[in-house]
């Protein structure tokens, strides 16, 4: 576990469409960034009305509550809810969504974002790639003085996002960074089990089912919390475990990482330093 905080003063924003996505695809990295000094903010673009097995209204309320609990488990400072209708984001204005993300990135002065790959190969959930696409655009636009310039009226100034971590959410999606999340595994599991409307309670449900059948699984323990955590560890994190093996650690998350753009002005200054000659007057 990191004890020093080299990133104190830096800010990251994790943007997902549905409650369980950040904990599942990037919960370990989020916990790690917080531990290393980052201040984290969480943005959910949908209202998750389609997830939870209840009425749309009950699903919205349950997911909203669970989202806050999940954010707390990972150490996020605050949560932004954009509340677009789940699985219907195709119908919204991309520009309006981008504008809201630009506002948030500027407001919190985001240095790093986590979200879905804008191209999202193999992704059947349109909410995900629409969210990723808007995040990518907003990262750039947030640094542009002339875009949404009215924000300056509230003292909210342009601020470019310099690093992006795109989730590896489907087989076949590209990644170029593997993050050892082993020390943060418990935090990741804590976050996933808070998402009860999106499979976080699978362990306790299984334990109840088995009890009805007169059976039990040793690993599910004697209480719901233990059962939920054990279920996540055993069944939901298999791919994170399997991929980590090749890198010599226990659990890993994968990302397509895009770092800060190259500083062109430094190149120019370097060229000047090497080639400029003194003027003869």
């Amino acid at each position, binding site marked *: 576990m990191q004890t020093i905080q080299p990133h104190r003063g830096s800010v990251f924003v994790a943007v997902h469409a549905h409650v369980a996505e950040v904990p599942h695809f990037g919960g370990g990295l989020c916990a790690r960034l917080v531990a290393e000094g980052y201040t984290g903010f969480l943005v959910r673009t949908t209202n998750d009305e389609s997830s939870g097995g209840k009425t749309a209204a009950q699903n919205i309320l349950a997911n909203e509550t669970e989202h806050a609990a999940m954010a707390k488990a990972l150490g996020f400072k*605050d949560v*932004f*809810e*954009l509340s677009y209708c789940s699985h219907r984001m195709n119908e*919204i*204005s991309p*520009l*309006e969504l981008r*504008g*809201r993300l630009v*506002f*948030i990135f500027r*407001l919190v002065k985001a240095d790093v974002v986590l979200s879905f790959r804008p191209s999202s190969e193999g992704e059947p959930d349109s909410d995900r790639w629409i969210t990723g696409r808007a995040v990518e655009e907003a990262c750039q636009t947030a640094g542009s003085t002339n875009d*949404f310039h*009215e*924000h300056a*009226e*509230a003292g*909210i100034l342009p601020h470019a996002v310099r690093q992006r971590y795109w989730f590896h959410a489907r087989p076949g999606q590209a990644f170029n960074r593997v993050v050892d999340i082993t020390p943060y595994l418990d935090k990741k599991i804590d976050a996933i089990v808070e998402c009860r409307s999106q499979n976080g309670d699978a362990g306790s449900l299984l334990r109840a089912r088995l009890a009805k059948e007169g059976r039990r699984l040793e690993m599910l323990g004697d209480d719901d919390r233990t059962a939920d955590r054990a279920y996540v560890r055993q069944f939901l994190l298999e791919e994170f475990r399997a991929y980590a093996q090749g890198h010599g650690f226990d659990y890993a998350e994968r990302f397509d990482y895009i770092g800060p753009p190259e500083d062109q002005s430094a190149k120019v200054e370097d060229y000047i330093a090497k080639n400029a000659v003194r003027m003869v007057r």
Partner: protein
Amino acid sequence: MRRRKFLAGTAALGAVPALAQANQSPAARERSPDLPARFTPSAWATRKTGYTPFAVPDYFTFASDLAVERNVTGKPHTGKVLAAVQAHSDDIPLFCGGTVAKLIDEGYAGYLIRVSNDEASGTTLGHGVAQNESDAQNVGKQLGCRKTISFYYRNHRMDDGAIIELRARLIFLFRVLRVNTIFTMDPYNHYDENPDHIVVGKAVEGACWMSGNRDYPEHYKAGLQPTHIQEKFYYARSPQGHNLVNRIVDVSSYIDVKTRANMANLIKGPAGNGGVRLREYLRAQGKRLPLLGNDDDTANFQYVKHFLMEDFRVLGQQFGIGYAEAFRYIGPDTPYLDRIRRAALEQSVAL
């Protein structure tokens, strides 16, 4: 043009009577003989000089509770904020510049918000955008606005975009600026040819309501507060516009400010260097019009005031005032709950 001539009224025209009367049609009268007596007209054909299409619209529909708003003394609106939202740099100065100037003089802090980039007027697209940006700033200054803000959407293409995005930006500004009162094109203005006007009117209307409630909660995390727009002044575009009018504002004391605001639009709208051009035209005919004076500024000022503003004076005459502007005015919400409680208390008996 024939239509305007037919509708031209029988107004007594003061400042430039000879020219004005030349534009009157002998057939023009209060009621057309072609309209059978059993029909009651539901719209009033306005009286116009024919000097400019961009003053009062062809028709108004007047509400039975119409009120005339006159000058007030002092600064009764101190602490309040108005936002005048226009699609183009000439909309506010032409159609409601007098009332905006009046309210600012009476204490309002004013902000001018221009939504388009006005690229459609200018020798090139770039020239149009740059000159209108500068002109819009000067219009705001002439009206006494604290600031002019431009959004730069493409001119005459605003129905191409998502109105929700524009509305979101307006909600943000209304909350930041703590706006109490807005001016904009009537979102229900009939027969308006310009799509930008309708888009802006609808966006403003929605933003007025939504800026007071819980939409865009991220704004509140930035420390902004909901703002409740208490008063709305909707104006009609001319000549084709037609809206319901329930408020006539006497802008006689502010007609010079309005004139100057219109002069600030150098390449958009009917003002610009019109006075200078008219003087040159007369000179080429071997004539001069004393009204236009001996310098460019005087010529342009008098041209705008005595030709382009003349229809506003004719409108004012109908209400016994000098210059007038007409609005669909929507005032503060009725305090329903207070009324229910008051009525309940009056009818209550002791426990």
